[in-house]
């Protein structure tokens, strides 16, 4: 079970986050100040850290992160902040943060992102792959071709990118915002249902051959790719 360190000065928010993580099958520890966070992150093993940008006392989130990276702690970090200014986001990521979420946030969004961070970190050393296989679906990464049950599926470039991204994160929930950020490359609060239309199109193509559904809709959260 992945263990997450929550660095958050507001105890109530920390408890809510811990409960949300527990719902997604993750354990957690809590630190209320920057100093405590550094001590805990260095003494015990965590799979990811949720770090509030604003902390009471001497150290803010960015400084805590700098201190951790300076002492060789490579645990992935997700920043939480009430400030959504891009410059702030950029600074957070440049300081070595791995992801960024602004308050108020959706708990499903948070857990999905933490889950993605943990898995990305676990397979940090990328194996040069030529093919992704999941169930009866084969993706040739060099030729950028997709075959399901031996039949080639024609995909537009963006559809191919979307599918590859879903397959690489198979088994875990991808929120609409995460998909939009990672496939289209823009960082904004996308609130239209356009992602759903893209997914629907991809689904139709994947299921044209009569195979079972591979993209699950997770109500209120997003999508999950599963082996049929």
């Amino acid at each position, binding site marked *: 079970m992945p263990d997450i360190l929550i660095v958050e000065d507001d105890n109530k928010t920390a408890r809510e986050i811990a409960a949300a993580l527990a719902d997604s099958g993750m354990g957690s520890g809590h630190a209320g100040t920057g100093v405590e966070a550094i001590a805990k992150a260095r003494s015990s093993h965590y799979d990811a850290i949720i770090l509030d940008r604003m902390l009471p006392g001497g150290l803010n989130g960015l400084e805590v992160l700098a201190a951790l990276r300076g002492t060789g702690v490579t645990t992935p970090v997700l920043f939480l902040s009430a400030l*959504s*200014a*891009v*410059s702030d986001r*950029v600074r957070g990521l440049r300081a070595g943060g791995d992801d960024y979420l602004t308050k*108020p946030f*959706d708990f499903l969004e948070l857990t999905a992102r933490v889950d993605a961070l943990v898995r990305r970190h676990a397979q940090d050393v990328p194996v040069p792959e030529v093919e992704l296989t999941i169930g009866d679906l084969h993706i040739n990464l060099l030729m950028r071709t997709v075959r399901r049950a031996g039949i080639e599926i024609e995909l537009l470039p*963006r559809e191919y990118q979307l599918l590859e991204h879903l397959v690489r994160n198979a088994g875990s929930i991808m929120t609409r915002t995460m998909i939009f950020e990672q496939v*289209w*490359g*823009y*960082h*904004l*609060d*996308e*609130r*239209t*249902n*356009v992602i759903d*239309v*893209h997914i*629907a*199109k991809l689904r139709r193509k994947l299921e044209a051959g009569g195979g079972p559904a591979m993209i699950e809709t997770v*109500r*209120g959260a997003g999508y999950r790719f599963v082996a049929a």
Partner: protein
Amino acid sequence: MRLSELRGATSFRLALWFAALFGSASLLFVATIYISTTHYLSGNPDERMRAEAASYDSRSHRVTESLIDQHSVADLTGRRPFGLFDPHGNWLAGNLRQLPSPRPALEEFFETTVNTTREHTIYRSILHRLPNGNLVVVSRNIEELGKFRERLLDVTLLAFVLMIVLGVSGGTLVGIASLRRLDRVTQAIEGITRGDLAGRLPTRGTNDDIDRLARVVNSMLDQIERLMGEVKGVCDSIAHDLRTPLTRLLAGLERANRRNLTEAERRAEIETAIVEVGAMLSTFAALLRISEIEDGARRASFQLVDLGRVLGDAVDYFEPAAASKSITLRFTQSDTGPVEMQGDLDMLFEAVGNLIDNAIKFTPPGGSIGVELRDGPEIVVTDTGCGIAADDRETVKLRFYRGGRAQETIGNGLGLPLVGAIARLHGLELAIGNAATGCRVAIAPPAPENHAPMRRATS
């Protein structure tokens, strides 16, 4: 208006200073004229008199005597009395019968006053010794010069007094006029300070300095009034827009709280509540975003953005959504070269995405949407939807406003205000008009005439 106020008035003080400066300059001028005139009038004849006296040096005694007699006969009015005396002072010839006593020094000018019954006359004379020892006196009446001097002095003084009077009274008048005007301006400002935001500073239409200042302040007041109105409108709208979902939320939670509900029904109510709260949160997030963008601090994230790429991505992203409503979505770039600008990649995508999303919402199936990029940079989104009524074109840019048909569709009324804020952050303007068949929304540099008054003011 009190006298102390007048004394303090800039224009009055300026007029006084001017009067003083002009007064001393003209005093200097008149004094110079006075001195040089009197010097000229008295100095030149003196030389002539000295020459006249010396001219007898080369004559014989008889010639001298007859010349002086001739002169005396000609000088009937006694303007220039001459006299010839022997070395003892006895009269020999001329109409000056007596040497003044005590005898004046030789070759020096002296003045004598001769009193008659009618008048007293001042003479200026010179006593000259001829080579044979006789003395000659050459004189002239200088009464007129004295009169001229007195007259000149009188006129000068009168002119000076007149000028001081005119300067002070003129200054007072100008000061009073400008004080009255400033009083009116002050009253207007005090009225505005007390809360009458519709009040404006009085202008005369003369385009003078105070008028220009008043007009700038008035346009500032217009802007403030507009902003205040907008803030009030936003507050009202927030209250209104949140009351409805909160009421629904409360009703839903009360339903969920009833005992006789099945587990599935209860869960459905809770999920509805979650959706409701989510919508409210997103309204808040959009509001916060608009004010954050309006702060302008985000320019820190500006970089060189290829607008063609952003628009292409946005069209590519929304194309399936348009297609699912049988709407054609087309992107054209009229200029061959890339259109680049300093900007925020994400926000520009958001702005264009909002416009396309709106167009999809308001265009009936079978219609078409065009996204066009021109040099300028100008981004134009046209659709074949219902369009926006001319009256609504400005108000749809305001927060929470949903024009005509939009009230029936989903949305929080914050889309166009957000686009407007993003455009302003990039130094562009959101313009809403009508296309041939529907709506035409453009993000473009502001029209030059909007800036004309500013340019006039700075030139």
